[in-house]
C-alpha cells in the first residue's frame, strides 16, 4: 500500500489474454500427455498467473501452492473415496435388491430407483467437506505483503450447517435462501485470518432480501401465470389452444426473469457480504460488480468460444475424416485407428474450449470483480504479524476427486 495516498486503494486486474491462453493450451496438452496427472501443476500455474495479476495499490498477492502437494493430496482422497464409495454402492445395491422385489407399480419403480441412486446423497456431505477444505487450502496458500492468509480447521462444522440450511431452504421453497447464504458465509469468513488478524462478517441475514427482489418477481410471474390464465380461460370460454398462446410466452418471461434474478442475487449478495466484512479495526471493503456486465461477459464469451470451437471442430473433422479414409483404402485396420484419431480430436477440442473459456469468460469476470474492489484504511495492515504454516491437509484432493470447486 502506498502510505502517502488517501486512506483507500482501488484494486486493478492486469492479466492479459495472450499469455493466459498460451499457458492454458500448454497446460492442456501436458495434461493429455500425462493422462491427467499434470492437471495439479496446471491449476497451480494458472493460479500463480491470476493471483499475481491482481494489483492492490502496487502490491500483489502471491500464490504459493504446489502441484506436488495437490497430487499427493489427491492420492489420499482417492483411496478414502474409493473405499467409501465402493462399500456404500455395493451395500446399497445389495439391500436395494432385498427391499424391492419385482416392481409392480410406478411408486415401486421410483422407490427402486431411489435406493439405487441414494449413493449420490452419500456423497453430498463429502462434497460440502471438500468445499470448505479447498477454501482453507486456497487461503493457506495465498500471501499478501509476505503474510499468509489462513482458515481454521472446521470442515465438519460447515458440513452439518450447510446440510441443515440447505434442507431449510428447500423446505421453504427458497424463501430462506438469504439465511443460508449469510450464515454459511459468516461461518467461513469468521474462521478466515490474515496473518494474526481475523476477518469478521458483519451485517444481518435479512439484509440480503433486497438482493432477492428479481428472483421474487420471476417466481411471482411463474406462479401467477397459471391461475390467471385459468381465470381468463373460464371467463372468456377460450379454448385450450389459445390459452397456450398466452401461457407459453408468460412462462418464458417468468423463467428468464428468474434466471436473471438468481444471477442478480449472486452478485448483490456478494456485494452486501463484502461491504460488511472487516479486518483489523476500521479496515473495510467494497466490491460492486454489476449483474448486467457479468451476463454480458458470459454471452459474448459463449458466442466467441462457440464460434472458435465450431470452426476448429469442422477443420479437425475434415482432417480426421481424410486420415481415416486414406488409412482405410491402404488396407490398415480403420477401426482402431479411427477410434484413436477421434479420441485425440475430441481431447484437443476440449483443451481448446477449456483454454478459451478461461480467457474469454473466467478471467474477464474475475477482472471485472477485482476492478470494482476498494479497500479502505489499508494502513492498518502494518500492524498485522505472520501466522504459522498450515500443512493444508489434502490440498484440495477431495475437491478434485469429487469435481467440486470454482473455475480456477
Amino acid at each position: 500500500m502506498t502510505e502517502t495516498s488517501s486512506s483507500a486503494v482501488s484494486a486493478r486486474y492486469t492479466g492479459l489474454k495472450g499469455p493466459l491462453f498460451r499457458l492454458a493450451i500448454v497446460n492442456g496438452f501436458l495434461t493429455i500427455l500425462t493422462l491427467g496427472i499434470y492437471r495439479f501443476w496446471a491449476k497451480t500455474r494458472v493460479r500463480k498467473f491470476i493471483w499475481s495479476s491482481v494489483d492492490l495499490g502496487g502490491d500483489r498477492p502471491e500464490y504459493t501452492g504446489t502441484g506436488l502437494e495437490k497430487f499427493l493430496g489427491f492420492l489420499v482422497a482417492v483411496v478414502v473415496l474409493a473405499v467409501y464409495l465402493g462399500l456404500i454402492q455395493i451395500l446399497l445395491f445389495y439391500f436395494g435388491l432385498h427391499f424391492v422385489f419385482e416392481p409392480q407399480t410406478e411408486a415401486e419403480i421410483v422407490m427402486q430407483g431411489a435406493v439405487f441412486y441414494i449413493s449420490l446423497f452419500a456423497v453430498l456431505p463429502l462434497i460440502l467437506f471438500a468445499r470448505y477444505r479447498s477454501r482453507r487450502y486456497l487461503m493457506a496458500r495465498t500471501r499478501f505483503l509476505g503474510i499468509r492468509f489462513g482458515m481454521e480447521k472446521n470442515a465438519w462444522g460447515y458440513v452439518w450447517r450447510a446440510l441443515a440450511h440447505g434442507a431449510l431452504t428447500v423446505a421453504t421453497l427458497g424463501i430462506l435462501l438469504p439465511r443460508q447464504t449469510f450464515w454459511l458465509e459468516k461461518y467461513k469468513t469468521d474462521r478466515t485470518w490474515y496473518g494474526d488478524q481475523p476477518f469478521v462478517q458483519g451485517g444481518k441475514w435479512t439484509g440480503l432480501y433486497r438482493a432477492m427482489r428479481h428472483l421474487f418477481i420471476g417466481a411471482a410471474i411463474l406462479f401467477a401465470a397459471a391461475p390467471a390464465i385459468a381465470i381468463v380461460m373460464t371467463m372468456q370460454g377460450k379454448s385450450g389452444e389459445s390459452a397456450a398462446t398466452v401461457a407459453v410466452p408468460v412462462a418464458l418471461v417468468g423463467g428468464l426473469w428468474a434466471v436473471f434474478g438468481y444471477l442478480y442475487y449472486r452478485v448483490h449478495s456478494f456485494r452486501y457480504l463484502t461491504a460488511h466484512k472487516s479486518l483489523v479495526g476500521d479496515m473495510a471493503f467494497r466490491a460492486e460488480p454489476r449483474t448486467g456486465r457479468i451476463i454480458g461477459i458470459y454471452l459474448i464469451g459463449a458466442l466467441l468460444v462457440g464460434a472458435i470451437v465450431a470452426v476448429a471442430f469442422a477443420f479437425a473433422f475434415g482432417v480426421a475424416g481424410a486420415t481415416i479414409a486414406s488409412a482405410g483404402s491402404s488396407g490398415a485396420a480403420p477401426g482402431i485407428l479411427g477410434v484413436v484419431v477421434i479420441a485425440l480430436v475430441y481431447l484437443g477440442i476440449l483443451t481448446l474450449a477449456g483454454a478459451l473459456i478461461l480467457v474469454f469468460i473466467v478471467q474477464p469476470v474475475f477482472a471485472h470483480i477485482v476492478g470494482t474492489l476498494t479497500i479502505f484504511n489499508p494502513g492498518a495492515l502494518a500492524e498485522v504479524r505472520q501466522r504459522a504454516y498450515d500443512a493444508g491437509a489434502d490440498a484440495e484432493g477431495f475437491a478434485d476427486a469429487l469435481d467440486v470447486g470454482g473455475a480456477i
Partner: protein
Amino acid sequence: MTGAAAPSGPVAATYLDGVSAARQAVTIEPTGDLRTLTITLADGSVVLWPFDRLREITGGSDRARLTLALSAAEDDETGRDAARLVVTDPAAVAWFRQKVTTLDTRDIRAGTGRRVALWLGGAVAAIVLMLFVILPAMADYMAAHLPMEAETALGATVMKQVAAMAGDGSGRDLVCRNPQGLAALARLQDRLAAGAGIDQPISLSVFDSEMVNAFAAPGGQVVIFRGLLDEATSADEVAGVLAHEIGHVAARDPTRIALRSAGSAGILALILGDVSGGTTIALAGEYLLTNSYTREAEAAADGFALGLLASTGISSAGMADFFEKIAKDTDSMPEMMSSHPLSLARAQAARIHAAGQGPTEPALTDADWQALKAICN
C-alpha cells in the same frame, strides 16, 4: 562487460520481512565480489542476502516485476524464507535475470522422490485391493446369500433391459413361442438341467433378434437369440453354448458381476477426475475392468460346459464347431479388450475334450432340431 550493466549505486526496492505486513522502502546493492546483496533498510540497518541462495518467485504474469526470496530449509510448501524483495527498476531487473544464474534453481527437498513413490504405490495398492479383492469377495458372499426372489426380480429387470436393447424399438414381445419349438427347447432344457446338478432352476427362452449371441441373467434365466440358431448347423452346437451359459448360472456369475460393477462403478471416474476427456478415458477403463472380471468367469463357464456335456453324453465337437465359426468375427479384437477369451483357443479346448469323449448322442432328434430352428416362426 556485455549485456545488462551492473546498476551503479544503490537501487530502490521494496522489502517485506515476512514477519509483519508493513512494506519497507529499501535500497539494494551487490557487494563488490558479487556474492552478497546488501539490503539497507530505512532505519539504516542492513540485511545481507547471499547470491547463491537468491531465488525468483516464478509464475507471475508481470515479467517487469522481480520478486526475490531466499532459499531456506523451511518446513513449509515453498522451501523459501518468508521475506520478499520486490524489484521494479528495469535495469536492476534485467541485471538480476542475466547475472544471477541461481534465480530459477528448483530446490527439491531431499526424499521427495521416495515420498512420491511411497504414496503413489500405497494408493495404487489400495485401489487394486479394493477393485480386485475386496469388492469381488463381497460380491461373491452377497451373491451366495441373496434370496432367490430377489435374484429372480433382478433377473426380470435385466431381461427387460436386454429386450429393450435387442428390440427394434416397437416394444413388441421378443420371446419366441412356436409350440413345437417350445417343446423341443423344453426337452433340451430337461436334458441339460438334469446333468447340471445345481439347485437353481434353469429357464431357457429364445429372443427373436438377429444377434448371434446368448446370455445368462440372474435367477437362472438363459436366453438364446434367433441369430445364433440360424448360424448353428446342429443341435450340439446350441447345446454347447447353452452348457456354457448354464455354467454362468451355476457360478451365479450374472449376480456376482452385477454386484461387483455396482461397487466399482465410478471409482475409475473418480481417479481420472476433472481432466479434459477424463470421462472418456474412465469409460474405456471401466469397459476393460468389467471385461477382465468376465474373462475369468468365461473360462470357468467353459470348463463347466465341457463337464456338463460329458455327463449328458453330448459331443463337445459341436461347441468346437461353433467357436471356430464365430472366431473370424470375434478374434479381430485383442483379448484384453474383449469380454471373452479368444474363440479359436476355446474351440481347440473343446475339440481336445471331444476326442476323449466316449459314445455320445445328438442333443436333439432331427425333428426336434428343425422345430427349434423354427421357434420364432
